[in-house]
């Protein structure tokens, strides 16, 4: 028997195998993975952007249709990252194939990189597709493309990590829906996806500042139009902060073996 060349540092074949598996899963359900969110977003766009938006004027001189594009992309990014990453790790737990992952020479960090990496890839691709779809409806300018990509990636990473945590925590399929439906969607709608929080009465505006989503959407919108509800520095800090919190949570989960091993 030839002894395998041992992987003492990084199991790249292992990470690649998981990543490819996850991408293949998305390609198998291409309709569900990409077409559905694109249609949903287009509908939002038609209803809010074209129908209602044509009667509205925004503060920053950007047409309402163009104004909501960053918010729409963020909304899709949140939900897709969450559902992809949570489903990706929950499903092997559900079918029992997790045994292989647990018995393989992959570190927890590698598992996270592979699953989260795949979820990030899928949601960023989706975000870009939505951006392309939107540009068919309204002219879009991107003032700070590098920052735009940075916000996109960082948000996708954060929410994919968060989704991964949900997937590990979940005991049933209903748990996978629970947080996205009950927390993320409301916070996104209240977080300035479809309006600037400057349009709100002062009391509501102050209240909105407790909503973390506000900072993510505001920063992302700034990278498009240079105008923001809150300062970009704060947005950036918040985005990095959420990412760090999720990273810390994941490492805690693995340190304790929480809900993966008996």
């Amino acid at each position, binding site marked *: *028997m*030839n*002894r*395998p060349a*041992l*992987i*003492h540092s990084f*199991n790249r*074949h*292992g990470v*690649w*195998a*998981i990543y*490819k*598996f996850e991408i*293949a*899963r998305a390609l*198998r359900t291409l309709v569900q993975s990409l077409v559905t969110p694109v249609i949903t977003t287009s509908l939002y766009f038609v209803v809010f952007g074209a129908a209602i938006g044509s009667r509205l004027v925004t503060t920053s001189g950007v047409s309402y249709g163009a104004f909501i594009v960053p918010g729409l992309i963020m909304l899709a990014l949140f939900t897709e990252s969450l559902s992809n990453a949570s489903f990706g790790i929950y499903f092997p737990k559900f*079918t*029992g*194939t997790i*045994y*292989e*992952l*647990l*018995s*393989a*020479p*992959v*570190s927890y960090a590698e598992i996270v990189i592979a699953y989260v990496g795949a979820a990030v890839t899928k949601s960023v691709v989706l975000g870009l597709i939505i951006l392309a779809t939107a540009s068919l409806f309204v002219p879009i300018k991107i003032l700070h493309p590098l920052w735009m990509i940075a916000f996109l990636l960082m948000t996708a990473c954060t929410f994919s990590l968060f989704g991964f945590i949900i997937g590990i925590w979940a005991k049933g399929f209903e748990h996978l829906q629970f947080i996205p439906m009950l927390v993320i969607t409301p916070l996104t709608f209240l977080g300035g996806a479809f309006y600037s929080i400057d349009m709100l009465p002062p009391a509501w505006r102050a209240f909105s500042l407790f909503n973390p989503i506000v900072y993510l959407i505001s920063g992302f919108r700034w990278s498009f139009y240079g105008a923001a509800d809150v300062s970009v520095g704060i947005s950036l800090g918040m985005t990095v902060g959420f990412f760090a919190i999720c990273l810390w949570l994941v490492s805690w989960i693995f340190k304790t*073996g929480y809900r993966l*091993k*008996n």
Partner: protein
Amino acid sequence: MPPIISIRGVTKSYASGFQALKLVNLDIDKGEIFALLGPNGAGKTTLINIICGIVTASAGTVTADGCDIVDDYRAARSMIGLVPQELSTDAFETVWATVSFSRGLFGRAPNPTFIEGLLRDLSLLDKRNSRIMTLSGGMKRRVMIAKALSHEPQILFLDEPTAGVDVELRRDMWNLVRGLREKGVTIILTTHYIEEAEEMADRIGVINKGTLMLVENKHDLMKKLGKRQLTLHLQTPLQHIPDELRFWALELKAEGHDLVYTVDSADSVDISALLKRLNELSIVIKDLQTHQSSLEDIFVNLVTERT
């Protein structure tokens, strides 16, 4: 030669508080086939899952070829392949994809030639592009074996490989196991079929209620614990055993029709003297029958006696 697997003081209590393993010490030699026998719930799967990294031991250490399974898990796990008891597969994947996935997961570079040979050995080659959900149960089990062997492990765990498998596939499986052993692979299997252990294993461990009750070379075990019985069917029934025969361990059965001679171990068997003496006493033998206890009897004895 140092053992390929060394289990020292391993215990396991599940979160429910249930103690599944009480204190297990066991060494597995390189290249042997070791069978772990035990009734349902004995702790076989728990022990295997601890070695493979699926369950965390409450105490104790395990090394695989000198590598600690916790501290040096990468090295330890990359030499181990596991076919678990439950059939859990990725229903939507193809056979080829899932076996290649396993190889990658265990850190090995792609090797289509090897995978092809593996699938051929397991008679799965014509199913390589089929989705797993379209396969029969026996084929799925073979896919699980292919996955476990995809990274060319030195140590293979088979947790009840032949549960729910037909006779032909069971034969195939045994042949496969023998072939692997010839290549130097160490095999640890659990089974409920005693004849399987009897036919396959070099050594046998009996586990019951979380305690490893005995570990023995199969032949020694049979010799030590195997009883042989000679049953003599008599022409005319005896009321009692004649005094002249007290030298032999005899019993009367079937209302004096059967004279049963039990030999506990291999030594001091003197059947011809017994037959001669019977002849002298004019006890006529109509027929005779011998019975050698199998592992099954040994096993049942062990498990019932000591509980």
